[in-house]
């Protein structure tokens, strides 16, 4: 039984790492813009499709697929911000960009439906079929790869936000956009940068999630609801909180499956969300920090 408990721990950490990657982009945009981006899920899905076609039909190289998905995500983030969100922000309404994210989401979903069709794709990578057995424990090379890439990304993002000038400028904009502008920081440039980074993360997480997800044009939707829950549990806009919350949700899913019933997963996750909102509405870590990002 101990090995099963340990195995479910591994399963939970792998799943949690994937959720963290998706949630990081969401929390980044919320931290800087105080805006929820519903189109994030669809950039994740598009990242998965891009990686699929690059890896399976064009180059045969999964790592190249991930890189192209990351670049595509960043480029799409820039385009969406420039074409949709930036003009709407000039109107000064908070509601318009929020509704626009829903519009962009529906547009992307239908475009993918047209391009890729509704039938599920089987995204197999060279790592997804290689199973490593250590005693009674098992995991795929893909699982290891996911944890490795997630950890590296989190460390790089954390270092960028804490130690670089641009990262510090982003944190300044998240605290007070007007004062940051008075200090010579260009908020519009930084907002664009935020969209690019968050969407690049979404594209990359899609490439990693692709082999795990039921890959259809609606794939991201099934993950994004959990990602929203993770962002709220972690503290909207808080990177450390998001990481911890993502891993907690992954572990809750695994252990609920083992000891209760997989049908209760959503109830368990959203019960945690309600408890957090009731007793600690600022999230797991937000209260300890002056700023979120």
């Amino acid at each position, binding site marked *: *039984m101990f090995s*099963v408990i340990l*195995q*479910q721990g591994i*399963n*939970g950490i*792998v*799943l949690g790492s994937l959720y963290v990657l998706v949630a990081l982009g969401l929390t980044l945009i919320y931290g800087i813009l105080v805006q929820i981006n519903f189109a994030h899920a669809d950039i994740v899905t598009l990242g998965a499709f891009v990686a699929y076609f690059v890896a399976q039909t064009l180059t045969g190289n999964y790592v190249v697929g991930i890189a192209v998905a990351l670049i595509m995500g960043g480029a799409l983030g820039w385009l969406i911000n420039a074409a949709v969100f930036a003009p709407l922000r000039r109107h000064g309404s908070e509601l318009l960009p929020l509704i626009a994210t829903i519009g962009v989401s529906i547009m992307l979903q239908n475009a993918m*439906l047209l391009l890729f*069709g*509704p*039938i*599920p*794709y*089987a995204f*197999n990578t060279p790592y*997804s*079929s290689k*199973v490593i*057995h250590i005693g009674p424990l*098992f995991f*795929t090379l893909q699982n290891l790869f996911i944890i490795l890439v997630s950890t590296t990304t989190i460390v790089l993002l954390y270092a960028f936000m804490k130690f670089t000038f641009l990262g510090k400028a982003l944190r300044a904009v998240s605290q007070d956009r007007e004062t940051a502008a008075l200090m010579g920081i260009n908020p519009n440039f930084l907002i664009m940068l935020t969209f690019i980074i968050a969407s690049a993360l979404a594209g990359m997480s899609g490439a990693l999630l692709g082999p*795990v*997800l*039921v*890959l*259809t044009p*609606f*794939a991201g939707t*099934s*993950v994004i*609801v959990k990602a929203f829950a993770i962002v709220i549990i972690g503290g909207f806009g808080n990177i450390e909180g998001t990481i911890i919350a993502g891993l907690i949700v992954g572990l809750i*899913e*695994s252990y609920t*499956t*083992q000891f209760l*019933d*997989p*049908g209760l*997963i*959503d109830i368990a996750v959203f019960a945690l969300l309600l408890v957090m909102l009731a007793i600690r509405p600022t999230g797991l870590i937000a209260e300890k920090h002056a700023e979120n990002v």
Partner: protein
Amino acid sequence: MQPSLRIPLLLACVTGSVLAAATSLRAADNTIKIGALLPISGPGSYFGVQDKQGVDLALDQLNKTGVNGHKFDIHYEDSACSPLPATQAAKRLLDQYQPEVVIGEECSDATLAVMPLMDQAKIPLLNAGSSSIKITDPGNPYTFRIMPNEVMQGVDLATNAYKRLNARTAVLLHENTNAGIGNAKVFADTFEKLGGKILEDIGFGRDVNDFTAIATRIGGLGNVDAIPTYTLEGQGLKITEALTQAGIVKGGGGKAIQLGAIWLPFGFEQKAGKAAIGYIRIVQFDPTDQRPAVRDFVKNFKTKFNSDPTHLNAHAYDQIMLIADVIKRGAKDAQSIRDGLAATKDFSGVTGSVEFDKTNQNIKMDTIHYMETKPDLSWESLKWN
């Protein structure tokens, strides 16, 4: 123009228009309008895409000459394999298109949701893909089902698992829908009655993507002989992969045999790869069947779509052909189509034969075919029926 000519000319124009409209109405009267409630979006959309191919092929053939002076027209609505969108789609279909007969839905929850609307509108609903027993038990005068229901499939599958595969333990895997729960229950009841033991009954939502945790739980149960699985294609793929990675099923070096019902399309095994080896499942169509109708269907399908037909293509084709058969027997409106369907005896389709009982359930079992995925990912027809 002279004023004296204006009135006759105007009358001639009006008369001409009325005659044209009347002719058009007569033409419309000769057209049998078929409504199609199919999942075109969402996780069950592969049903809709493949059903549409079968329908298109049948209509191409029928509309070349017509049947009893009738041509056929079809209008599709996306019912998304889910009760709410299905209900909305059915209302649109009934209000705007006003069909004489409707085909669909594929998913039981969606079919159960639209049945009262069809009953109220007195429009026959011909179903091919939903297995829940609730659809025909206690029965509804306007709903007909040509595929075997969950009891017919489940009893057969459990009996074969116990008697032919010598399975004594099983774990049930199913989505938490009417069809998923119902199919699993029938299997469990039959299997236990025969002396088998159900080790676990594991249900899950349609939003679950990663089945490693479920595979781990099954792996911790010890000796599992059979894993009947009731889910749509996308989740089915992920389950099979996870069971393989955990070394539980044959594809992963284990001994458990995954069993499935009429849920997965052909081509599943190519997507799942070696994970699908040893998977035994029911399909509603055997393309190796040597009956001339089946050979013609396979040939014509290949010509039109440049691919082999699946059982989803086949049962959609049969739905249209059955409607045409009823029209051939003299039906021309919704009520006579309903009555004609109810009177159907020994209709021979490409999936098998059709004869409805008093609950409007097809009682013929020759629509059940078993197949097993071989190591080269081809499949073998098991000829168990």
